[in-house]
């Protein structure tokens, strides 16, 4: 289960809406071993695309070094789908490489945006499993 504060849910939606119609992406990190998301870091979508996202490679190196220095880990990796539902696509599953992270998807598709479709998945060894989300 993902337990996350309303503040971060709102921040992810705000980022996704700001970047619409391109996909938005980012992370929420937290102290290692706690599983609690405490710090939101929006990332640049290097693909700048409505159908694809990829963290900018240099920004990503800085992120991982920063996490090491602060003894933090990626708790949430999020991105938006801008014309489909908030469910991992085949490419999302194929490229997922952080088995310990919660993969959060939101949709900014017009018909779904009002429905607050905020969903979380574990993606391990090519299998995505949806999990409950508790908003605190």
């Amino acid at each position, binding site marked *: 289960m993902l337990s996350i504060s309303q503040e971060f849910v709102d921040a992810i939606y705000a980022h996704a809406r700001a970047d619409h119609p391109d996909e938005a*992406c980012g992370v929420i990190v937290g102290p290692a071993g706690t599983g609690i998301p405490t710090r939101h870091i929006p990332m640049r979508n290097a693909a700048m695309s409505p159908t694809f*996202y990829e963290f900018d490679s240099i920004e990503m190196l800085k992120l991982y070094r920063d996490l090491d220095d602060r003894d933090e880990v990626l708790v949430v990796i999020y991105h938006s*789908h801008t014309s489909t539902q908030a469910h991992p696509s085949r490419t999302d599953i194929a490229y997922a*490489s952080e*088995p310990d992270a919660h993969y959060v998807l939101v949709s900014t598709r017009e018909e779904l945006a009002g429905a607050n479709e905020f969903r979380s998945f574990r993606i391990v060894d090519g299998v995505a499993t949806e999990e409950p989300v508790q908003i605190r």
Partner: protein
Amino acid sequence: MAVSTPEIDIRIPTILRPYTGGEKSVQASGSTLAELVADLDRRFPGMGERLLEDGKLRRFINVYLNDEDVRFIGSLDALISSGDNLTILPAVAGGS
């Protein structure tokens, strides 16, 4: 006289640690990135295939020499010097 090649530190991402017995950081040597990857694969069999495809770096594996993405400094031809460090990070990417 044999030319010695530098042995440098390589940072291994979570998803590849099964190949290194769980080690976060390992060493390998080579004068170019291609040689370094070959040595890494000798020491940790299977690693080469996770990094290369058709003799090139996989599109969704990011490799950094010090602070630079190797794609901008010659990819597999990038030159390795003593004291360098290498970081491997799978790209965080996907699509709808």
